[in-house]
């Protein structure tokens, strides 16, 4: 058995070679003798071997897992903070292992960089080989065609030259590359398989480079806008801003837009009552420093695209319009205050900060702060819940309690606009000495005690928050992706195969035609195709009448012979 294997190899030798340019698997045991170059060569050969590529692929998928189970900084920093507070024991370990930034971690990068080096180390020589094959011609027929996976033979009266000529014609009509060499026709088809294979792997590299480039040059920021307000694309206007390490401020596209109106509709009935159905942000925008104003509706799946920058609708909420009067009845504050939603029914919280202009009844400058709790649809008095029942504005109620003193905004430390720092403040109290709090409907006013003034809930506006993103090279990524699919389809669906036709005139003057086919993988299609070809050739060179019953029906004999 092993004996036949060896002869097999030798027989097929040149015929089977280069049917694919796949790297040959070498015995891993062969460790080089010594020397830096020897080691380097050994390392390179290991790295570019299919076996190591497989292991790297496996590691890549394994390495991606923790990132899907542990919150990631790149996805949601807030969640990471919560996780860190909740798991104090594992956090230091996770931080050491960069588990909060898996996809930019040293070890994950190491895996994919090695994988891509391995890929390049594999692709470059294979491309060279393949170009060589394209320039060359299909190799000559092996000596014993009977050893090939598909084989047929018959005897004919036609001349060998005629048979070869006819075979060439048939094969070429079927778009085989064919030529006569060494007294036989050699033909090959399915070069697109290798083309597809190489294209796929090159496309992967293009995608990786495009993704990396996009990450380096990208910019991404958020902006919350209340109806009627606007935004101009400069860094100072962003609420938060992130950018890749090669990003330049001048890369920001000059444009601006105003939020005219936000419309949200929600499911009215059924178990999914309150589930959002449409979100529409109606904006007017202008390109360039002072371009024409255009209208556009931004929806969740339909960003505004200006000059390569995309503006996405991210979230929305309510912004009660609040006015505050001091003890003398002078309005010292009037503004819409965006509140942050805390649940799906847009129960919202936030803070109202009256920083300057307010004077207490003694004429002393003071700051006021109010904690605000807003529900668009109130359950009703005595229902025992202050949480919103529905995300639409059916029964808006604002609950307030107030503080006076110093807001602490002058300390120079950045402060959360949605939270009140009450460490330097005193709360307003009612006549019983309890905290002063009141629920207001739009238009209602809460009087502050001791002639400290009043606060009025004037009306409600909506806000929308936008994500403004610029990610260059996404066109390249898309091109790479499309090429990858095309290449993949080529490399998986096309068979590369060779066919040989040999016609030799025997001593009895009859020509023996032999045909054989070889594919890279054993496929049922190969014998079928060979049969088609044989039938076509057979019409040109039909079977000669058998001279005697003894040596005929050769079709079965060679099979037996092949076994021994």
């Amino acid at each position: 058995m092993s004996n036949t294997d060896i002869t097999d190899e030798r027989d097929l030798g040149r015929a089977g070679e280069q049917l694919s340019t796949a790297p040959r698997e070498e015995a891993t045991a062969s460790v080089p003798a010594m020397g830096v170059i020897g080691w380097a060569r050994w390392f390179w050969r290991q790295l570019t071997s299919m076996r190591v590529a497989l292991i790297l692929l496996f590691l890549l998928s394994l390495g991606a897992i923790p990132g899907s189970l542990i919150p990631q900084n790149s996805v949601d920093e807030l969640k990471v903070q919560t996780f860190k507070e909740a798991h104090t024991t594992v956090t230091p370990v996770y931080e050491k292992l960069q588990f909060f930034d898996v996809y930019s971690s040293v070890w994950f990068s190491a895996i994919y960089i090695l994988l891509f080096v391995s890929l390049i180390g594999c692709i470059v020589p294979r491309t060279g080989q393949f170009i060589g094959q394209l320039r060359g011609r299909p190799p000559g027929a092996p000596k014993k065609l009977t050893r090939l996976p598909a084989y047929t033979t018959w005897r004919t009266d036609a001349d060998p030259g005629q048979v070869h000529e006819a075979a060439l014609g048939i094969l070429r009509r079927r778009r085989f590359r064919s030529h006569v060499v060494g007294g036989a026709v050699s033909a090959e088809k399915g070069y697109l398989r290798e083309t597809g294979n190489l294209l796929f792997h090159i496309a992967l590299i293009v995608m990786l480079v495009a993704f990396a480039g996009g990450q380096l040059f990208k910019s991404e920021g958020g902006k919350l806008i209340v109806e009627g307000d606007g935004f101009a694309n400069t860094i100072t206007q962003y609420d938060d801003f992130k950018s890749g390490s090669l990003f330049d401020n001048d890369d920001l596209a000059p444009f601006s837009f105003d939020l005219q109106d936000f419309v949200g509709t929600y499911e009215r009935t059924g178990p999914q009552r309150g589930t959002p159905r449409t979100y529409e942000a109606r904006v007017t925008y202008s390109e360039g420093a002072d371009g024409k104003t255009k209208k556009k509706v931004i929806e969740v799946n339909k960003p505004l695209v200006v000059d390569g920058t995309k503006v996405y609708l991210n979230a929305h909420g309510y912004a009660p319009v609040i006015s505050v009067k001091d003890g003398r009845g002078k309005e010292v504050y009037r503004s819409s205050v965006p509140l942050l939603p805390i649940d799906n029914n847009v129960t919202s919280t936030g803070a109202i900060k009256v920083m300057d202009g307010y004077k207490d009844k003694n004429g002393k400058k003071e700051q006021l702060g109010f904690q605000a709790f807003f529900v668009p649809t109130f359950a009703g008095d005595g229902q025992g819940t202050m949480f919103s029942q529905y995300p639409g504005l059916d029964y808006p109620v604002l609950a307030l309690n107030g503080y006076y003193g110093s807001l602490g905004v002058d300390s120079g430390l950045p402060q959360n606009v949605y939270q009140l720092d009450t460490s330097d403040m005193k709360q307003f109290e009612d006549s019983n000495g309890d905290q002063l709090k009141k629920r207001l409907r739009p238009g209602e006013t809460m009087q502050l005690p001791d002639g400290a003034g009043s606060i009025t809930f004037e009306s409600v506006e909506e806000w929308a928050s936008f994500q403004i993103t610029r990610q260059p090279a996404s066109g390249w990524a898309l091109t790479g992706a499309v090429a990858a699919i095309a290449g993949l389809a080529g490399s998986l669906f096309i068979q590369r195969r060779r066919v040989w036709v040999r016609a030799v005139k025997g001593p009895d003057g009859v020509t023996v035609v032999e045909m054989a086919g070889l594919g890279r993988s054993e496929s049922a299609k190969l014998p079928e195709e060979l049969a088609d070809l044989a039938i076509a050739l057979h019409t040109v060179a039909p079977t000669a009448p058998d001279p005697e019953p003894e040596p005929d029906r050769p079709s079965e004999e060679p099979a037996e012979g092949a076994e021994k």
Partner: protein
Amino acid sequence: MNLAAATNESLANASNTLIYSSMAVYTLAFFAHIAEWVFGSRSKVGRTAAALKKDSATGGSAVKAQVAQQGGTAVLDRPRIVTRSAAGTRDVPDGPGAAGGTFKGDLWGRIAVSLTVVAFAVQAAGVVARALSVQRAPWGNMYEFSITFSTVAVGAYLTLLALRKNVRWIGLLLVTTVLLDLGIATTTLYTDSDQLVPALHSYWLWIHVSTAIICGAVFYLGAVGTLLYLFRDSYENKLANGVTPGKFATSVLERLPAAKTLDTFSYRINAAVFPLWTFTIIAGAIWAGDAWGRYWGWDPKEVWSFITWVAYAAYLHARATAGWKGRKAAYLALVAFGCWLFNYYGVNIFVTGKHSYAGV
């Protein structure tokens, strides 16, 4: 457009009834398949086939002479094609199928397939009714995804049968899985028919989710093939080494196609679907670029579809690598399908990400 397309309650109810009815018919098909296997196990033909197999399995690599399609009348005049397997491969013929060549078993098998066709039609009608009741693609939540998933899996199986491929051996396992899938869908995953959240208002829903379902369903057929390949392969190995496998194992496994056939089947399936899976991920990335402002952001669903992709890529590479062919590659294929399953159930249920809609 969105609010105008209110839910049509009666159609939604009709859909539920159809799904339950299809489960009833699938149950009948399940029992018919069981009957097929039971009758097949008593077959004498099966025994003889097994005996024959032992011969050829121990006889070393025999040359298989086959007559390729000849067609026409002048059969003797036409050249014959001799095929020859590569050295070292076992040439074991396929088993006779679940019916084991018995008339009764075959009858029950045909009944099972007919019932499966009926159940498939009823189930497909259920999915369509669900879609009509909300006038959108019926893939807005896990329930809808699940019922479509098993419909497509059965559809793919029936298509292969219609193409006269040798796939009836999947029948029992497929029907069992479909029942399981529908059972989970109608109990724990059930969501009332309703409109979509704004994030799903996109034609990419049709493209991305439909291909995801098709990939999953067809990958599933491949995984069944791989699993049976592993069993059948170890059975054949035992026979080749002169070990007698257990009675039950013999009875079941001798009727399956040869390990090589199963292996080729699952390879073809997986290789055919892999480009589509690649496309699914890319379509998802394009949609994410429109909806979320970035085409790739390591959302758990994205991560797991990537892991699934890499696992299938590893499987396809392994088949071309010495030392990884055969069983090792098969294990990789199973791991890859496991990743797909986790991506569907696990990520939706245990991990919160941007792919959470309508409760789950």
